[in-house]
């Protein structure tokens, strides 16, 4: 039997790896044979994290991934210790809801920093000479908010739209090095439902925004599988896309 999503022999860096979705991604990439380097802002002492880092093909690095000045030095260390990468997954970032009347640029900038600036800086640092393998693949987790307007989600949505636009530009630019760059537009995921801001968002956006997601809520494992798909050689010529993983939300 063959497995087109096989990742054996590949080393993948996952930033924002200790969120619930991040952990699911790390776990599944490990299951598919990859060596996974996890990266996140703090080492939370959750048992789930301990379980995953106990695997012999997973290591964890911690520094403030939203502090731009720390990224370059952090990546220098990671690459020095771990060698060449075949894939990079960005599932860091933050959410938030705020109506226009209360939205000053500080709020937007904070969102842009976590959802765009850190990503672009990490891509710059990981694609330096001799750090990223030929035919390597980069995947960013974006959101359907990038293409669908919602009240009071201007800052979050705009940061995801900016992320997707950066993905297209970086895909064009890095095609010279045969590096692929794509994003995943996720709809409502099971883990989202635990976040405090979701409830207020639901109230702001009439009815139940979830109902638009015709196939129901997304299990994080599906995001992990889609990440693996885009990292794998099954998608050797897919680049610059924002793949919808939304249960029919945008229909």
């Amino acid at each position, binding site marked *: 039997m063959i497995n087109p999503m096989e990742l054996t022999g590949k080393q993948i860096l996952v930033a924002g790896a200790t969120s619930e979705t991040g952990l699911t991604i790390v776990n599944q990439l490990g299951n598919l044979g990859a060596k996974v380097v996890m990266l996140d802002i703090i080492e939370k002492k959750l048992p789930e994290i301990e379980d995953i880092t106990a695997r012999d093909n997973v290591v964890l690095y911690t520094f403030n991934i939203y502090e*731009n000045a720390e990224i370059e030095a952090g990546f220098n260390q990671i690459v020095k210790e771990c060698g060449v990468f075949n894939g990079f997954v960005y599932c860091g970032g933050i959410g938030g809801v705020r*109506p*226009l*009347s209360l*939205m*000053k*640029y500080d709020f*937007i*900038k904070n969102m*842009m*920093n976590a959802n*765009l*600036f*850190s990503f*672009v*800086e990490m*891509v*710059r640092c990981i*694609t*330096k000479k001799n750090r990223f393998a030929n035919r390597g693949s980069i995947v960013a987790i974006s959101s359907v*908010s*990038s*293409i*669908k*307007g*919602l*009240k*009071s*989600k*201007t800052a979050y*949505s*705009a*940061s*995801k*739209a*900016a*992320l*997707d*636009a*950066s*993905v*297209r*530009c*970086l*895909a*064009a*630019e*890095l095609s*010279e090095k045969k590096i692929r760059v794509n994003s995943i537009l996720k709809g409502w995921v099971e883990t989202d439902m635990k976040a405090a801001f979701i409830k207020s968002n639901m109230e702001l956006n009439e009815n139940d925004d979830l109902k638009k997601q015709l196939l129901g809520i997304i299990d994080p494992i599906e995001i992990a599988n889609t990440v693996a798909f885009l990292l794998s050689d099954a998608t050797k010529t897919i680049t*610059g896309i924002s793949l919808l993983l939304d249960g029919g939300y945008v229909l």
Partner: protein
Amino acid sequence: MKLLDLTGKKILITGAAVGIGKETAILVNKLGAEVILIDIDENGLKEVIASLEGNGNQFYSYDLNDLDGIESEIDKILFGFGPLDGFVHCVGIRSRRPLSMMSPKLLSEIMCLNFGSFVELVRCVTKKNNFNKGLSIVGISSVSSLRGSAGVTAYASSKAAMDCAVRCLAKELASKKIRLNTVVPAQVNTPAYKDLIKLKGDAKDDILFRQYLGLGEPADVANIIAFLLCKGSGLITGSAIPADGGFLST
């Protein structure tokens, strides 16, 4: 009734000293509107103002990088001028930088001016008493918001952010009878384009490769902006309207 009619309307235009902003100021003024022009280039503004009809037009030299000063500036301007019927945001800088020379600082600067100033201005002009029912807001985006090309990551992401914000804000501000759209030009014959041509030298033919109707003129884009400001476009909101000579269709 004329389709394009802005008689008695009051319209704020940023980036009005050159290019698309300048042509928009001239056109909406011809269509009957009074304008407030904002740009960092005071001499350029004076020239544009001198070419306009009527005595009610005003100009302000202001650096929109200073986001914190926008609110008091707008409140002050509109206190004398009266509530707005239209706002057109043409300010924006192009940036070309390969990834290897990119920095979060550069990304942040481009985002602040191209996107941050837009949202802050929208916030300020949509405050109570600053606008009339039917206010139409138009942002100038770019095809790079929708199509990737090498070296323009910062610029493209700032324009994509603007297009996306317009979708969200159109929904949010609909209850106040405010519409928001963007116009999405490809290459337009502006000073920024002339700089690009100089930079590209022999490769300049590639620039218009996908734009099969050829180079746009600022006045072509101004026509579309004027339409979006007029009542006739009352059903259009939250959209990104191409002004691209066919670019996005190829």
